[in-house]
C-alpha cells in the first residue's frame, strides 16, 4: 500500500481549484451522470434546462382573476412549459418543448368567416391591437387528471366577438389550429385528424372567463403552450382550449371537434370539468396538482361554477358530457 505523507509544502488540491469551481464541477458531473444514464435507458435528456423565456409583454393590466383571489399556489414556469399535451409537436409531455424550438409564430394571420359582419383574414397584430391585455390566473385541469394554476395574459374572447359582430345565425364558434406538417412535425403522423378543431356554443364563447391567450407569466406565449394565440376556457378540460389558432368560424351548426371525432364516447362536445361524470379511462373525481404528491378532489366546473353553471341549467350533464 502506498502511504503518502503530507508535507507542509504540499499544495492541497482545494488551493488550486476554488471551492465554487469544484462544487459546480461536481454538480455538473452529477447532472451529467443522471442525464447520461437517462439517455442510456432511452428515456429523457436533462429535463427543464434553463428555459429560453419570451419577451416581456408591455402594458398588461391586472384583472380580478389574480392569484390572491384564487388562493392557490401558482405553478412554476418550468413545469408549465415542459409538461404539455400538444400533439402537433409530438405525443410525449416534453416533446412540445423540444420540437417547437424552431417554430416561428410570427407573422401570423387569423381567418374569420361565416355568420359574421366583419369576416376576413387578419394579421394577428392588427387583430389584437384594439384590445387591452390583461393577466388572469386560472386553474387548468387536463382530462388526464392532472392540473396546474397558470398566469395567462390575454384578451376577453367576448370583446373580440363583439367587435367582429356575429349575425343572428351564429350559434356556435369553431376554431382551427394551424395545419402545416413542415412546421408542426407531430402532424406528419395521424395521431388525430388534422387540423385540430374545437368549438364553443356562442354563450360559452361570450362568457367572461373565455380568454384568447397571447402570454404566460407576463411574457410572450411560448411555442409549446400554443403560440401565438390560443383559447383558454378554464371550466372545461384542457383539450377544449385549442392552441395556435388560425381560423374562427361563426356558424349555426355545432362544429365537429377533434377528440370527439377520435373517440366520441370519451370526449364530448362540452367536456366541462365534472367530478361526477367519469371518463372511461380516468376517474375524474380527483386530480394531481403538478408539484403535489397527493391528489386533490376535482371541483365542479373546475371551481368556476358561479360563473358558468347557469349556461347549463336544465341540461343532462351525463348525456352532454
Amino acid at each position, binding site marked *: 500500500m502506498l502511504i503518502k505523507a503530507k508535507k507542509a509544502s504540499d499544495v492541497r488540491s482545494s488551493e488550486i481549484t476554488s471551492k465554487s469551481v469544484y462544487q459546480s464541477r461536481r454538480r455538473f458531473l*452529477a447532472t451529467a451522470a443522471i442525464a447520461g444514464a437517462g439517455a442510456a435507458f432511452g428515456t429523457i435528456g436533462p*429535463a*427543464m434546462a434553463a428555459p429560453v423565456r419570451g419577451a416581456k409583454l408591455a402594458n398588461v393590466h391586472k384583472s380580478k382573476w389574480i392569484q390572491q383571489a384564487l388562493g392557490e399556489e401558482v*405553478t412554476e414556469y418550468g*413545469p408549465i412549459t415542459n409538461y404539455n399535451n400538444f400533439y402537433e409537436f409530438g405525443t410525449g409531455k416534453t416533446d412540445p418543448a423540444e420540437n417547437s424550438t424552431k417554430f416561428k409564430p410570427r407573422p401570423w394571420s387569423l381567418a374569420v368567416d361565416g355568420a359574421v359582419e366583419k369576416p376576413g383574414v387578419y394579421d394577428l397584430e392588427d387583430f389584437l391591437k384594439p384590445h387591452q391585455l390583461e393577466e388572469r390566473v386560472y386553474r387548468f385541469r387536463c382530462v388526464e387528471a*392532472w392540473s396546474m394554476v397558470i398566469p395567462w395574459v390575454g384578451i376577453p374572447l367576448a370583446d373580440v366577438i363583439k367587435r367582429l359582430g356575429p349575425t343572428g345565425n351564429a350559434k356556435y364558434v369553431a376554431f382551427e389550429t394551424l395545419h402545416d406538417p413542415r412546421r408542426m412535425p407531430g402532424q406528419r403522423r395521424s395521431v388525430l385528424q388534422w387540423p385540430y378543431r374545437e368549438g364553443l356554443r356562442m354563450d360559452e364563447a361570450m362568457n367572461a372567463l373565455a380568454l384568447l391567450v397571447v402570454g404566460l407569466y407576463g411574457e410572450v406565449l411560448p411555442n409549446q403552450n400554443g403560440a401565438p394565440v390560443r383559447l383558454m376556457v378554464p371550466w372545461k378540460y384542457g383539450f377544449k382550449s385549442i392552441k395556435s389558432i388560425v381560423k374562427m368560424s361563426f356558424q349555426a351548426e355545432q362544429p365537429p371537434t377533434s377528440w370527439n371525432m377520435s373517440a366520441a364516447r370519451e370526449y364530448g362536445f362540452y367536456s366541462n370539468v365534472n367530478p361526477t361524470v367519469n371518463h372511461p*379511462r380516468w376517474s375524474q*373525481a380527483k386530480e394531481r396538482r403538478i*408539484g403535489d404528491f397527493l*391528489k386533490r378532489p376535482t371541483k365542479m366546473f373546475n371551481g368556476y361554477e358561479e360563473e358558468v353553471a347557469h349556461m347549463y341549467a336544465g341540461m343532462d350533464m351525463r348525456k352532454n358530457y
Partner: protein
Amino acid sequence: MTRDDTIRKIAKPIVFAACLAPLTWIAWTAVTSGLGPTGPLGANPIEYINRYLGDWAIRFLLGALAITPVRSITGWNAVMRFRRMIGLFAFFYVCLHLSSYIGLDQFFDWTEIWRDIIKRNYITVGMVTFTLLVPLAATSTRAMVKRLGGKRWSRLHKLVYPAGILACLHFYMMRKGIQLEPIIYAAICAVLLGYRVAVAWRKKAQ
C-alpha cells in the same frame, strides 16, 4: 473453467446486474432529486416513474418471449439459460409497476383502485395480465417444474402468450389517439408469437 462455469459465475451475474440497472437508475434519481416538479423526472414524477416501470416490464416480457425464437433461429443454446431470469425480471418490473400505481399514483386509495379495476378497461386488462403472470413466477423454480412434470409445466407456461398480448393491449389502450410507441411493441409481440404459430403449422404439415 468449463463453459457451464462461465455462464453460471460470470455471464449470469452480469446479466442480473444489467437487469437491475433500470431500477437502480430510477430509484437513485428519485431519491437524489426528489419528487418535485422541476427535477430530472419531469413535472409529474409519479406518472414518470409509473410509466418507466411499465415500459421496462413490457420490455422484459417481450425479451423473455424472444428467447426461444432466438435460440431456434441462431442455434445459440446457451441463451436458454437466461430465460427464467429474464422472465422473473419481467414479473419483478410488473410488480414494481403495479406497486407504484397503488402506492404512488393512488396512494393506497383502495376504493378508487377497485373502481379503476372494474371500470377502466386498460386497468382491467393490466390486472388480468398481472394475474396471468403470478402462477408463472410461482412455478419458476426447478422443484416446481419437477412437481408439475415437464409437460404440464410447459402447458401452464403458455400463459405467457396471452400475457404478452394483453400487456401490449394495456399499453395501447392507455395512450390517447393512435400513437406509434404501443404499436411498435405490439408489432414485436406479433412477430414473436407469429413465429411460434408458424413453427407449429410447419410441424403439423410434416
